[in-house]
């Protein structure tokens, strides 16, 4: 009875959500093994071995896995999974991409996006954009599971010394080729893990006006989010989208500006600890989930907010 976690990383370090997924894995079974598949990813395997709750690290260092193409990664995971009862990964665009391929090859019905572990076979997962929670029991012998990272705390990063074992690469089908990745570079905290998120919607009216959001975000050391409407309208790039099919965020403070609060947007942020809504439409559904609602024109409210924040002696980081 061991659980195999597939690490998400960029060949130099683990992605933050891997630590959350490791916590979830440890709730399924305490014997957590981590598979690091990549190219020149020795540092990543060392980083994983340092995590106290990790019992063993398997590393497969091969050009086959440089860009995590699911066609290449899945055969390796399938082979390594022989010795495991549970195969888990984060429910983000990394885990969502390859895990169903693994599950189908093993003839396993995957349990997607779990938010709670009730036991080795029983989990809670949101359905209908988080408007209902389903408790489900997997009756497969082997289980493929993806984990909603924001529902679990990040694992302790140092103090462990798990053994690192090498794994041979597996033949790849050569049916897909990586061309490029355009990552949005930002000095701000990552949206998925930021303590504060300031999000803008269609109410911003243009991409230029997102400067008002950015200014508040910089003042609060926050990440910038957006509604689907704002992304669709081209105001901001897709990696900022919060919602059912975008990112799910659970910050201490979520400030929604000019966002009406469509069901699919609420799905991505309504578990936030404190929610602030700024909207000129007092009937907007966003107010129904807001702890503090301010009915105001954002174009006057945001500059005023910035000046009020500037008056504060200290701001938590």
């Amino acid at each position, binding site marked *: 009875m061991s659980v195999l976690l597939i690490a998400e990383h960029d060949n130099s370090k683990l992605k933050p959500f891997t630590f959350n997924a490791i916590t979830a894995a440890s709730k399924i079974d305490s014997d957590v093994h981590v598979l690091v598949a990549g190219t020149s990813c020795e540092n990543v395997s060392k980083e994983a071995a340092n995590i106290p709750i990790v019992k063993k690290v398997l590393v497969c260092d091969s050009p086959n896995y440089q860009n995590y193409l699911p066609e290449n990664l899945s055969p390796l995971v399938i082979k390594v999974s022989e010795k495991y009862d549970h195969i888990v990964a984060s429910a983000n665009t990394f885990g969502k991409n390859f895990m169903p391929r693994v599950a189908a090859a093993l003839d396993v019905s995957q349990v997607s996006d779990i938010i709670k572990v009730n036991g080795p076979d029983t989990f809670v997962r949101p359905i209908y954009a988080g408007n209902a929670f389903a408790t489900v*029991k997997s009756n497969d012998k082997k289980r493929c599971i993806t984990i909603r990272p924001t529902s679990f705390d990040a694992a302790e990063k140092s103090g462990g010394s798990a053994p690192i074992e090498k794994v041979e690469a597996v033949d790849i089908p050569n049916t897909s080729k990586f061309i490029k*990745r355009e990552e949005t570079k930002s000095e701000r905290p990552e949206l998925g893990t930021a303590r504060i998120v300031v999000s803008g919607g269609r109410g911003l009216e243009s991409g230029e006006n997102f400067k008002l959001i950015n200014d508040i975000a910089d003042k609060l050391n926050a990440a910038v989010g957006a509604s689907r409407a704002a992304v669709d309208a081209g105001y901001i790039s897709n990696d900022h989208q919060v919602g059912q099919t975008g990112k799910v965020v659970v910050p201490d403070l979520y400030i929604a500006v000019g966002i009406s609060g469509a069901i699919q947007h609420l799905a991505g942020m309504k578990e936030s600890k404190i929610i602030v809504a700024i909207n000129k439409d007092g009937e907007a559904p966003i107010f129904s989930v807001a702890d*503090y609602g301010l009915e105001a024109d954002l174009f006057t409210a945001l500059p005023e907010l910035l000046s009020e924040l500037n008056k504060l002696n200290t701001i938590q980081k």
Partner: protein
Amino acid sequence: MKILVAVKRVIDYNVQIRVKEDGSGVHTDNVKMSTNPPDDNAVEETVKLKESGKVKEIVAISIGEDKAQESIRKALAVGADKGIHVKADSYIEPLGIAKILKKIVEKEKPDMVFLGKQAIDDDCNQTGQMLGSMLNWPQATFSSKLNIKEKSLEVVREIDEGLETLEINLPAIVTCDLRLNEPRFASLPNIMKAKKKPMELLNAKDMGVDLKNRIEQLKVEEPPKRKAGIKVTSVAELVSKLKNEAKVI
């Protein structure tokens, strides 16, 4: 080229769902249903490809109860050529759906299968990838831009970090993101014409695949409700509340 496009009929995205008191699921009686939104994007993209001359035939498939035919008819009304309805009266997990689709692919021999990236009811995000695995085909999930070449497909995908470009060999699986295109509405004459387009009727239990669900749904419940909040009257009051009451800044 020939494309198979899969559509699912789900509770309409604008409906506020209600959980049944006995915990067995959500209310679906007299609830507005429609095609899963990203499936509309999948259909639209196939129609655009046909209009560009790159694709000859579009086959739209849906698996589900009789009313799933509404989603197929909608696809036919915007440009699909033929429909396949695989009748299934109860819920089938993505694993079973992928097995049925594999059977259809083996018979129809399309060059590509298009699907929405995720259904907004069970939010599984599995079917396309599972089908790719079963067929040993490459996949492009979360696609937001496509360029079909002779024997391959160049795809831009929306990933957490931004955008990724891949080139995958045909035949291939494409799962569609909402920004791939703007789905069109069917005109009344086309809706009428769609009624005459062929629709093949099959039954899930005659497909010769194991459809037994592996996941038992023990209970469906409402998520914990948020406590009602307050309205503040000024920005200064908001900042003071955040600082002194919520203590988050």
